[in-house]
């Protein structure tokens, strides 16, 4: 279950605050996944005291609103990533970045689909630079793209270009995954699906034997 409480002293109207929170939640908590199970209790409450002394925000497109939105995004994304990092049994955080879609929502959907793939997650735990599983998950995300424009990189190591697998250094790629796992660090997966302006991110974690152990023992 995900729970969150967010507070600010910014002065903002109810309508704008609720819209800002909706946007930030979609860019953060709704973009993480650990095990694919949506809880009965997921809940984020956000409160704005309004006593910072700042001028009131009543226009979503004002500079002040954009500044506050960016900061709200960062706080929620920081918390969201720490949840994925702490996924049950996880040895590393997986950050999936998708570019080249027509809009932000399409990129976000592909990113989360890849981060959610049990096969991708297991491959990361197995330190296997398995571009095929990444490409597969991107392909069934429900967002149309040209497979001949698909690029995939693991960290700085490019695995696929224009839909063609590359002769990458498999040992180096595997080592990248192993080092991330040993340090409980971050594995970065970069995916480009075209030339559009849309980009989005999602965060997950690898899938280890410990996940089953923890949840077999955490019973009703």
């Amino acid at each position, binding site marked *: 279950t995900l729970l969150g409480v*967010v507070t600010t002293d*910014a002065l903002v109207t109810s309508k704008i605050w609720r819209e800002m929170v909706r946007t930030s939640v979609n860019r953060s908590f709704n973009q993480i996944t650990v095990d694919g199970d949506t809880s009965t*209790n*997921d809940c*984020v*409450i956000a409160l704005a005291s309004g006593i910072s002394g700042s001028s009131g925000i009543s226009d979503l497109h004002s500079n002040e609103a954009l500044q506050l939105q960016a900061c709200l995004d960062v*706080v929620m994304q920081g918390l969201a990533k720490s949840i994925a990092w702490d996924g049950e049994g996880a040895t590393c955080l997986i950050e999936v970045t998708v570019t080249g879609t027509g809009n932000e929502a399409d990129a976000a959907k592909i990113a989360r689909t890849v981060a959610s793939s049990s096969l991708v997650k297991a491959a990361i735990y197995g330190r296997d630079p398995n571009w095929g599983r990444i490409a597969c998950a991107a392909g069934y995300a429900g967002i149309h793209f040209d497979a001949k424009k698909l690029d995939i990189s693991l960290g700085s190591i490019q695995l696929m270009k224009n839909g063609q697998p590359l002769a990458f250094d498999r040992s180096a790629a595997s080592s990248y995954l192993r080092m991330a796992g040993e340090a409980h660090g971050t594995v970065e997966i970069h995916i480009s699906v075209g030339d559009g302006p849309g980009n989005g991110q999602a965060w997950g974690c690898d899938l280890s034997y410990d996940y089953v152990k923890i949840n077999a023992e955490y019973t009703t």
Partner: protein
Amino acid sequence: MSSETETAYAYISAAPILLPEGPWKQIPGGVTAAKGFKAAGIYGGLRAVGEKPDLALVTCDTDAISAGAFTTNIVAAAPVQYCKNVLGLSTTARAVLVNAGQANAATGDAGYQDAVESANAVAQLLKVNPNAVLIESTGVIGQRIKKEALLNSLPRLVGSLSSNVQSADSAAVAITTTDLVSKSVAVETQVGGVSVRIGGMAKGSGMIHPNMA
């Protein structure tokens, strides 16, 4: 209160918080970093095992503009239903009570009544409107909250409220379940040339695939 805080520290460490570079700076504190907020986290006897803090309260000195995002799971827990109802009636809130141990999900009408009674009890102690108190629960699904233990602990919880960093940290620990680390962060930025702070705490480790609206 300091012994409660030290107890919280002993159970769990803080998560690394990964923030990108930008026109903000990370500052100490979590939910209490912004002006007007207090928090507390104590052990109230709700957990089945151990004595890690399991009750958290965040309060605001003023009527805070409120917003919420909730699971779209049709089988939503009682506190989720309660909060959705309250946020539909009011645009402001004064407090958020969070318990760990029992999720109060799939508990029917009795579970909903537990949420209402918990909110009312907090409202009475804080001397605010019951609709100004929101509730979050986490823990084992299918179990009602240990209401007697919760209600008995509320005076001590309210008495522990503070705006300091330690109280924010204690609250962040108190909402954890299988989490190996607590999650808390605060940043400061400029909005229209004035310093504004945003802070937060979260929990989650398993059953994580949110789809909130």
